[in-house]
């Protein structure tokens, strides 16, 4: 237990030393779960949970707590705190230190606590990269303490609104044998297993969907292989309210003492920060809208939506302020040409009228006593 306290102190010191930006997110869930879990009868449970994420320039901290009350008045509760800190870039790699502490308890059972630290080397960027490392820790139940040894490799990849994460972890520990500590004559077998997992997440337009799955191979006298998969989704119906659903099969979390379970759940989620919603709330203001996108290499496309116009022209720094007519293509007016990426000042004209700024662009002073719009070309 003294070792666990020391590890906890190290984690807190590492994370607390790093000043945190204002980047944080807090959510709370309240709902019901139909649950089949080792050690308790199949039942419906009321659930209450909260997650706090805080991220600084080079650090991150996640704290999650979850409590469940089964119909048979049986309670379970768990809490996990995960923290990490990343060093400055040195060549292609960066070092990372991770820490985790957890507690799991249920009525009429001794709680299980754990604490771990790990060191890893990261390569790549936040969009695409990998890491490899190892760590150690301890887990305890009652007067029984067992060490944890872990080796782990990860890879991640982001494309637009999708993020994929792969993980392989080798864990070695000993089973927690209950109230009495093992005697001098008792040899507690080593428990080793490998978890291979994949995680996909889509987050856009008020809809968040995630799928986690994997397989575990356990060595030793009783070699076994088993799998897990969990699907979760949250639909933000209001900026701070979402409906969250989940279903899946989870394996025993050996380190944290959480038994395996199969579940289906639905919850109302409340967020301290606003989210985009799945429902468009406001009608667009009347007036021409403009958008720019990259077609290929140096070629850029500018589309102007001006439904009632019969002629649309654009002028800007990339035309040397000469008017350039756009071509009607479907329900937009289009221009394709070479435009350097970055900020550009523009104005448009409908049907030989005055030069105006599209309604969806901010306006800036043009140094000549007038105003133009500013657009960023990708």
């Amino acid at each position: 237990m003294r070792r666990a306290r020391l590890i906890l102190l190290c984690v807190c010191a590492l994370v607390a030393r790093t000043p945190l930006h204002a980047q944080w997110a807090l959510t709370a869930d309240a709902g019901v779960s139909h649950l089949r879990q080792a050690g308790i009868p199949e039942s419906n449970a009321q659930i209450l949970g909260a997650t706090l994420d805080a991220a600084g320039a080079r650090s991150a901290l996640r704290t999650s707590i979850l409590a469940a009350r089964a119909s048979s008045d049986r309670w379970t509760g768990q809490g996990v705190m995960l923290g990490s800190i990343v060093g400055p870039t040195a060549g292609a790699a960066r070092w990372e230190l991770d820490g985790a502490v957890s507690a799991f308890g249920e009525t009429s059972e001794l709680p299980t606590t754990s604490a771990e630290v790990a060191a890893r080397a990261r390569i790549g960027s936040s969009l695409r990269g990998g890491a490899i490392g190892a760590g150690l820790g301890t887990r305890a139940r009652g007067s029984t303490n067992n060490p944890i040894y872990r080796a782990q490799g990860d890879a991640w990849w982001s494309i637009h609104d999708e993020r994929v994460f792969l993980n392989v972890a080798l864990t070695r520990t000993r089973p927690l044998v209950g109230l009495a500590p093992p005697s001098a004559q008792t040899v507690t077998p080593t428990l080793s297993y490998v978890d291979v997992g994949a995680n996909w997440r889509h987050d856009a337009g008020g809809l968040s969907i995630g799928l986690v799955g994997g397989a575990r191979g356990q060595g030793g006298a009783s070699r076994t292989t088993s799998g897990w998969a969990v699907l979760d989704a949250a639909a933000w119906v209001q900026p701070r309210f979402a409906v969250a659903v989940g279903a899946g099969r989870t394996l025993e979390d050996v380190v944290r003492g959480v038994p395996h379970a199969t579940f289906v759940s639905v919850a109302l989620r409340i967020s301290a920060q606003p989210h985009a919603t799945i429902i468009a709330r406001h009608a667009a203001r009347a007036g021409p809208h403009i958008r720019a996108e990259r077609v290929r290499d140096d070629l850029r496309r500018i589309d102007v939506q001006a439904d009632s116009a019969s002629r649309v022209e654009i002028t800007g720094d990339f035309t040397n302020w000469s008017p350039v007519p756009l071509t009607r293509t479907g329900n937009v007016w289009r221009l394709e040409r070479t435009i350097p990426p970055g900020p550009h000042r523009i104005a448009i004209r409908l049907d030989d009228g005055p030069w105006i700024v599209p309604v969806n662009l901010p306006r800036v002073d043009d140094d000549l006593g007038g105003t133009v719009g500013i657009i960023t070309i990708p």
Partner: protein
Amino acid sequence: MTRRSLWLLCVFVGAHAAGAQDSLVLAGVGRETAVRLAEIVDAARSSGLPTDPIISKISQGVLRHASPERIVVAAQSVATRLEEARAALAPAPTPADITAGENALGVSGVTRAALQAVRSTSPNRPVAVPLGLLAQLVASNVPAKRATEIVTDLIRRGASNAQLVALGNEVNSDVERGVRLIASLDVRLQGLTAVLAPPAGGSAAASAPVGLQSGSGPKKP
């Protein structure tokens, strides 16, 4: 502005100084003003600055029938901003980055320090698009300090140019739909950073599966 004058103005873009001055005179700009404008362009060219932004500003002034004095002041402002942008984006910024930096500095509230912050976060990559987002956010009345923090944080998290542009477009669209600017920023940033890893690990959250689920799941791996 006649077609002939416009053509002569285009000649100014690559012409010799004397010929360029004649073009401007024919375009309605007095000889004295033409001399001063040519000096501004030549001085920028001699010091290695891109001259297209200055020529573009002169073109804009001529086509808008601005007074000669106003055109000269505007051209000089652009030249000064180009010099400032080059210094802020040092060392060795590309002409595209200098041009983008000048454009950003032309937005009231964007400072040299903001450009330096963007450059120091991305020392070896083009910064034209991040500077564009910075300029757009400040022009939309996001406080410059906050806008700088947003842009530099997104760069650190590995946001692509397409993602940066999309963020600016979405915020602009929200604002013109009547959504409060800061609320829109919070919403759109949450959505974007949910698929960008934090600069630190965060991967510990996806290590072993947690036994009891409420359907929340990790927000990001």
